[in-house]
């Protein structure tokens, strides 16, 4: 799975999730597994909207947290990779269509 800075990301629409006190809890309905994101993970999750790439998400992180651009990009890509492997996020198809 490519987490190249230019790929746009969206949340997997099948998921149930809730932000509770700045931490996000996500349930994947197919396997009933619960995932938890801390506040920075939640910050990124809120901003994953199908219109932003890893690079753009990292920029938002730099603007809100004390982190260098390099580390922000590297960590954002790592998180997207892990979330992608768990099918929590999916890349927006090249045609721009939404995943149903």
């Amino acid at each position: 799975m490519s987490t190249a800075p230019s790929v746009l990301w969206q949340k997997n629409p099948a998921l149930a999730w809730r932000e509770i006190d700045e931490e996000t809890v996500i349930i994947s309905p197919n396997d009933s597994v619960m995932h938890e994101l801390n506040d920075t993970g939640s910050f990124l999750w809120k901003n994953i909207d199908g219109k932003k790439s890893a690079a753009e998400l990292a920029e938002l992180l730099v603007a809100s947290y004390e982190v260098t651009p390099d580390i922000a990009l590297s960590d954002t890509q790592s998180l997207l990779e892990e979330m992608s492997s768990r099918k929590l996020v999916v890349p927006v198809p090249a045609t721009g269509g939404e995943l149903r």
Partner: protein
Amino acid sequence: MDRLISRTVQKHRPLSVHFDLTYRCNERCVHCYLDHDDHGEMTTAECLAVLEELAHAGTLFLTFSGGEIFLRPDLYEILAAARRLHFDINLKTNALLVTRERAARLREFRVRRVQISVYSDIPEVHDAITKVPGSLQRTLAAIPLLIEQGLQVKLACPLMQENLMAYRGVMALAEKLRVPYVLDLTITPMMDGSETSLAHRVSVSSLLPVLQDPALHACKPQPDSHLSSAPKAIPAVAGSAVSSGIESSAYEDLPCSAGHNSCYISPYGDVFPCVQLPQAAGNLRHKRFAEIWYHAPRLERLRAIRESHLPICSRCEIRSYCERCPGLALMEGGDLLGAYERACDLAEQKARLAGLADPVSALHQERAASSQTTTGNKIAALVTDFSPD
């Protein structure tokens, strides 16, 4: 999961909500605790407003139940709203009205689990409980339709006099369908407090074969859990299996989750700590959910209760075998903090099965002591009466 439970209990976030959409039902189960007449159910708009408020308050696990939910003509509208708001959606139904098309709609709304009441694998037994001829056949016909859609199905079988020994059949049925099941030993009084439903309850001694059945102990679900560790500026996601949503050791010093991070909403908008604790904290037609949840005196009082406050149960030597329910303590014993006969009898039975010699609950110890004292006083009185001056 424990961490989520701990922080939602600590901050009183309503993580899990049981929302009955209607009390109307197309079955008339002999043990049911509901009045099935419609006394003014919330409208579609009211239900949707409630969902908005719950999402805002932090509810994730949402169970729609009834009555029979498919009798709500606006069920899909409500489910669509729940999906839009990203709830983890679970349903409880008798599945009589489930068709292939309806099962597909449930999939569209990303319903995670559908719990279906099955009282026996024998039609005569099941149908005698539901009072609907052919109901088992219809319920069983619906299950594959739901499974085909990838929905998780769970069988629920409350045990009562009419079906006590049918549980093995339900277990076999679940195994054949490859779905989980739950056997429920609880038959509750009616919501209005009357005890007509209790006539169907099985005595604790009659439950012995069920409690002793090794097959049941072998089938307890063992959720696998794993945590990833990634020491980075943005720690990675942590994942763990979700079973019923809110079972956890994080409730250790609390009587239960009711009013701490879970609650029940009736079709009429009443907010209760739990479906088994019929003390309404407020009504959503008059107040917003957050106002009731965070400020209702009844909920505040409930939240202050700790296990150590229970005058009898806190000193019970077999408390670890007991599944005391505060709601049933109130309904059956008249005291939210009290002990009640059924729980004590069951705890003693379980402790005995676990190998304890002659276990006696604190309630029964107290009664025995009190009875001895009373008898002793009577004798003393007689002695006094007949003793010479």
